[in-house]
């Protein structure tokens, strides 16, 4: 006789199916996939344009009898073609993850099934574990789609060959990308469970995301919001003042968008020489620590969720 699936697995499977039926989740996920494809095209298009500009400029300089500098494209690693993906992950990837996390709880609350689940023979831990497992599965799926697009791009472009190390770096980038989305998914999950109002449940993680993406980089590196979403401009050296030194020490370890940006630039080989993350914490370590904290917060919110909860307030 086949063993019955565990309650946690049942919750995870049912929740993931339920969320995948949501049209808004499908819309945001589709946007993410389209933007990942666009990022591959943008990387290729922008690099080839710079190359053509160089060829024109070289001819111009030769004609003027001036020395011709080396082609900046030759200094660019092929991995950096994917640099725009880091921006889209930080924008739409994080927002999709928040929505997925929020919906995983929101749908149960809106459907009024929490009291029904509460009377079933399963513990709060199984419910929390099931929801986190569902979120993990969905975020891994998003990460896998982005990974497939990245791999397909490198395999299809004829002039590009990656070394074994570069493939490993790409795998590392996809891993931190999934981790970054996972952090926001967990925050969305926690907020969806904790909030009394559906709007607040969505608003809190979105506000946190706005703060991390657009306000903290300004404090740690004097980076204006539009520069923060350009993969190259975002890697600026902070002004050499005591204010920015202190801001980096105090806020650097929690500035997740900065950490993701610098980790991506390091792994995709587009981090300019002499520029480093403003935080004293290595970026990847910052992301790992943040995911542990987010998982703990989500676990606490889920295990303390009142199973008598009905729909949200207005």
């Amino acid at each position, binding site marked *: 006789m086949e063993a019955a699936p565990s309650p946690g697995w049942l919750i995870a499977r049912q929740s993931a199916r339920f969320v995948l039926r949501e049209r808004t989740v499908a819309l945001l996920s589709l946007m993410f996939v389209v933007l990942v494809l666009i990022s591959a095209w943008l990387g290729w298009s922008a690099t080839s344009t710079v190359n053509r500009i160089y060829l024109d400029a070289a001819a111009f300089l030769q004609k003027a009898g001036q020395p011709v*500098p080396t082609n*900046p494209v030759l200094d660019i690693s092929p991995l950096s073609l994917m640099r725009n993906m880091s921006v889209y992950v930080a924008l739409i990837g994080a927002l999709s993850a928040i929505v997925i996390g929020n919906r995983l709880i929101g749908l149960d609350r809106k459907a009024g099934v929490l009291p029904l689940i509460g009377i079933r023979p399963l513990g709060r831990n199984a419910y929390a574990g099931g929801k986190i497992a569902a979120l993990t599965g969905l975020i891994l799926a998003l990460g896998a789609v982005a990974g497939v697009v990245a791999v397909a791009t490198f395999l299809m472009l004829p002039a590009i060959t990656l070394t074994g190390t570069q493939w490993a770096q790409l795998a590392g980038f996809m891993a931190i990308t999934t981790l970054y989305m996972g952090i926001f998914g967990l925050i969305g999950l926690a907020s969806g469970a904790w909030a009394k109002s559906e709007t607040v449940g969505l608003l809190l993680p979105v506000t946190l995301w706005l703060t991390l993406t657009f306000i903290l980089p300004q404090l740690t590196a004097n980076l204006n919001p539009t520069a923060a*979403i350009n993969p190259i401009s975002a890697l600026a050296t902070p002004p050499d*003042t005591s204010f920015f030194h202190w801001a980096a020490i105090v806020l650097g370890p929690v500035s997740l968008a900065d950490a993701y940006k610098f980790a991506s630039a390091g792994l995709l080989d587009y981090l300019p020489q002499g520029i480093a993350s403003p935080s004293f914490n290595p970026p990847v370590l910052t992301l790992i620590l943040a995911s542990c904290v987010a998982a703990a917060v989500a676990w606490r919110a889920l295990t303390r969720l009142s199973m008598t909860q009905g729909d949200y307030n207005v």
Partner: protein
Amino acid sequence: MSDAALNPVRLNPTPVRTIAAKDIRDALRDRFILIVTGFLGLAALVALVTGAIALRNDVATYEAAKASLLALGKSADAIKAPEFYPLRLLRGAIEQIEIIGAAIAILIGYRSAASERGRQTLALMLTRPMRRWQFVAGKALAGIGLLAGGLALVLGGLTLLLHLMSGIGLGADDVLRIAVVWAVAVAYTACFFLVSFILSLHMKQPSHALLVAFAIWLTLVLIAPQIGDTLDPDNQVAGGVFKQLNIAKPDQIEIMKGFATFETVRDGIEQASVTKHFERFTFAVLGIKATYAGMPLGPILIEMLGNLIWIFLTALGLGALALALPLNPDRLAKA
């Protein structure tokens, strides 16, 4: 004296004014608008202060370099003095309004429509002797009024701070420029308010409407300008491609003539977004874009008229759409 004599709304209780006044009272009572305005104010303040600190550092570095050159008996003309236009310090704040201001407008639009549906009061209100367009107009006026008030507070606070900390103070022309930026910022954020309001009023589930509105916000505010910005060849190489190749500005223009189609496509992607029009207009009026620094306001307004028309036509078009769309009886309550 009776209450009616004190309250202008009661003296002339047209449905539009009554609904608008009630919505504004509700919004102020639950402190939501104060919280989101505070958040925008904080973001703008951070942008202003960090920009000012960075500028002060540039000035100190210049002064130190100048003193070193003079001590060596050399001319200080070799180094370029940092330019100081106080209004340029508003760059970060304008970008925060561009992004966070638009997001706040979406939230206000969502709440304006969703609250009536959630409290099941929409159907009740429509039984009152008023036309449906009056209900929509009242709600829209209240939302845009709240945005105008919030933006006035934020920009007013920044103006005062700039006046006090710039060291040279702001003149009447500077204040006028900020007032022009405020008016355009109201029209710009009204576009996002109306998108969210229309969707929340007409989609089956208001929470889905909020997410769709955020998807539109992402596309118009962040993605379209980002694509245009990324395709800018000068943003592809750290420090700029032409700077790395040591090519002077006139020669850059000559070389870029061969990339006219590419630049047209890039510009077209940027132009598709109302955000880029807002950015171009405000950066010109405030002299943030170097070519407009020190230029009188009149010629700037004439040159930027296209951007201004785009922003106001988008807002007016969305306003007309909100008034024209009939309310669906199936959408009167929360799904």
